[in-house]
């Protein structure tokens, strides 16, 4: 598939130098009405870290103008953790000796029923990448999910346009594909074997998904794998260019840091502090005020509660990241350790208490 977006992002990334910006640049950027690519880079710079309060102030206003006090809630459901990839940062990687499992359609339905009882209407189905999680299997799971949920997202391996079309036909509303790191050398070091080692094919997923009819696409990096400022810059631009090229599409950004997982032996990556993660979120909100920004349960409740409404407008609730785990016991081990273990009810109560309106559904398929 011909696309110029990869070239654009790579070019911008080559020119990205967060160390050139000064305090005056940051101050000027924060006075601008709308931000261009250079402004985005400015807000991602080390210097801008000192302006986090000013950024948060403006980000809160932008978030409120766009979404009011609404916070969308969803939950992920892992239907399989079989995986042929060897992503060194992931608990599901091929070499990791964990308990593997896939849910049968009956088991999926039980899980769906259990989750739907919490009132959620937005569910994200996840798999690893393996022959046991065929397109037909995923399509079947989506069809089941559409019996109980209005919005069905997929976080699965990248597929072709025709396959996205099939999944959309089954009921998939949005697709998340995270590039993990946009630095190609680093990407190849982290994705040693398996189909995920194809950087370009993964990069073009969102565009293929849109061509397959999907309404919303999500972008993300796993901050800490590479230079996190560069990855945040590239992630934001990837979404920016996709939205420019396909203005009808909704774009969404997820903010994830490396998390510990079972049997891990971390010899790579850099620490990204909470303050830095917050800076990336705020810069993204100011650059793309209209986009969804999701915060992961990888972060603890104090951080998640803090970023809600000052940048984040979407969060997961009542999360299990093992295979299954909502209706029955886990059938497979977890992908990573979650930090925020609160139930849907607890998250809702927190939101109400803070004056937010939990939103369960914001799109209807007819």
């Amino acid at each position, binding site marked *: 598939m011909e696309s110029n977006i990869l070239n654009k992002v790579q070019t911008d990334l080559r020119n990205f130098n967060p160390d050139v910006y000064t305090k005056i640049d940051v101050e000027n950027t924060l006075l601008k009405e709308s931000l261009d690519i250079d402004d985005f880079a400015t807000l991602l710079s080390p210097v801008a870290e000192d302006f986090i309060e000013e950024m948060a102030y403006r980000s809160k206003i932008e978030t*409120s*103008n*766009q*979404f*009011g*006090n*609404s916070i969308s809630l969803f939950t992920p459901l892992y239907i399989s953790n079989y995986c042929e990839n060897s992503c060194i940062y992931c608990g599901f990687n091929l070499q990791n000796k964990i308990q593997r499992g896939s849910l049968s359609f009956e088991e999926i339905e039980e899980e769906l029923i259990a989750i739907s009882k919490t*009132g959620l*209407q937005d569910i994200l189905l996840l798999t690893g990448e393996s022959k046991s999680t065929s397109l037909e299997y995923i399509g079947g799971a989506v069809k089941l999910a559409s019996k109980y949920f*209005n919005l069905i997202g997929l976080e699965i391996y990248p597929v072709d346009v025709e396959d996205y079309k099939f999944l959309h036909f089954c009921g998939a509303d949005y697709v998340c594909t995270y590039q993990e790191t946009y630095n190609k050398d680093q990407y190849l070091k982290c994705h040693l074997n398996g189909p995920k080692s194809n950087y370009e094919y993964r990069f073009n997923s969102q565009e293929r998904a849109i061509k397959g009819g999907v309404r919303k696409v999500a972008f993300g990096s796993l901050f800490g794998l590479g230079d996190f400022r560069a990855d945040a810059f590239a992630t934001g631009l990837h979404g920016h260019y996709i*939205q420019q090229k396909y*203005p*009808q*599409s*909704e*774009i969404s950004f997820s903010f994830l840091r490396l998390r510990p997982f079972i049997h891990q032996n971390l010899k790579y990556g850099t620490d990204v502090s909470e303050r830095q993660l917050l800076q990336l979120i705020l810069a993204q909100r100011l650059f*793309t005020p*209209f986009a969804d920004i999701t915060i992961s349960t990888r972060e603890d409740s104090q951080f998640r509660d803090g970023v809600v409404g000052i940048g984040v407008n979407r969060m997961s609730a009542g999360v299990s990241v093992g295979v299954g785990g909502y209706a029955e016991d886990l059938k497979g081990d977890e992908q990573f350790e979650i930090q925020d273990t609160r139930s849907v009810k607890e998250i809702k109560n927190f939101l*109400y208490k803070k*004056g*937010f*309106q*939990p*939103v*369960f*559904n*914001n*799109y*209807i398929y*007819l």
Partner: protein
Amino acid sequence: MEDPLIIGDKKFSSRFILGSGKFSLDMTSKVMETSGAEIATIAIRRANQNGEGNILDYIPENLVLLPNTSGARTADEALRLGRLARELGCGEFIKVEVIRDSKYLFPDNYETIKATKLLYDEGFIPMVYMMPDLNVAKDLEKSGAEAVMPLAAPIGSNKGLLTKNFIKILVDEINVPIIVDAGIGSPSQACEAMEMGVDAIMANTAIATANNIVQMAKAFKLAIEAGRYAYLAGLGRVLNLKSQASSPLTGFLK
């Protein structure tokens, strides 16, 4: 003084249409009551039928519902949303919104005209969100629009009457009510639009993002009434024409 706003075959005494998004559902009835609004817009795509947080459960019964077709990217999707609104018991009024730009949320005037025709043909009373353009407004009238709702500024921007001069042209040329929708950020801007002769104001973000939502709803109500009175009274000499020439221009007349 009776001065009703007439849309379709319905008469309203309030000229304030209030959006129900962007603030807590349990405040809805209080905000609506204080605003004096008789029409409330709701996003059908937000309706969560039989589920939690269903906006339809929160709108006071005496209000006329104005479901919108937000989320529609084509005329056909707008039509289907309209039909769903009808099934949900929202009545015949429909706020037509067709948007294919997720960044600025500008209305797609071309598809909007088509959607208006489709909805009108199925018996709806279309009130149509549009980018102020005279030709489009005329086409909307021909397509069955019962009200034309030009934007003042990008939605949610609270920037005020950026398109003032174009809206004034619609006020002068279009026969159905003109309702300014989107972009109004403060009561003074709402008042300014009313003084200019628009028939009503639709607002949401300006109220939803205020520190005190209920008080702001009241402030808008009063400003809209003040603007209407000013329009009806006929503004005095506020035109900023240049001072008169020192020797009379018409001195040559015999």
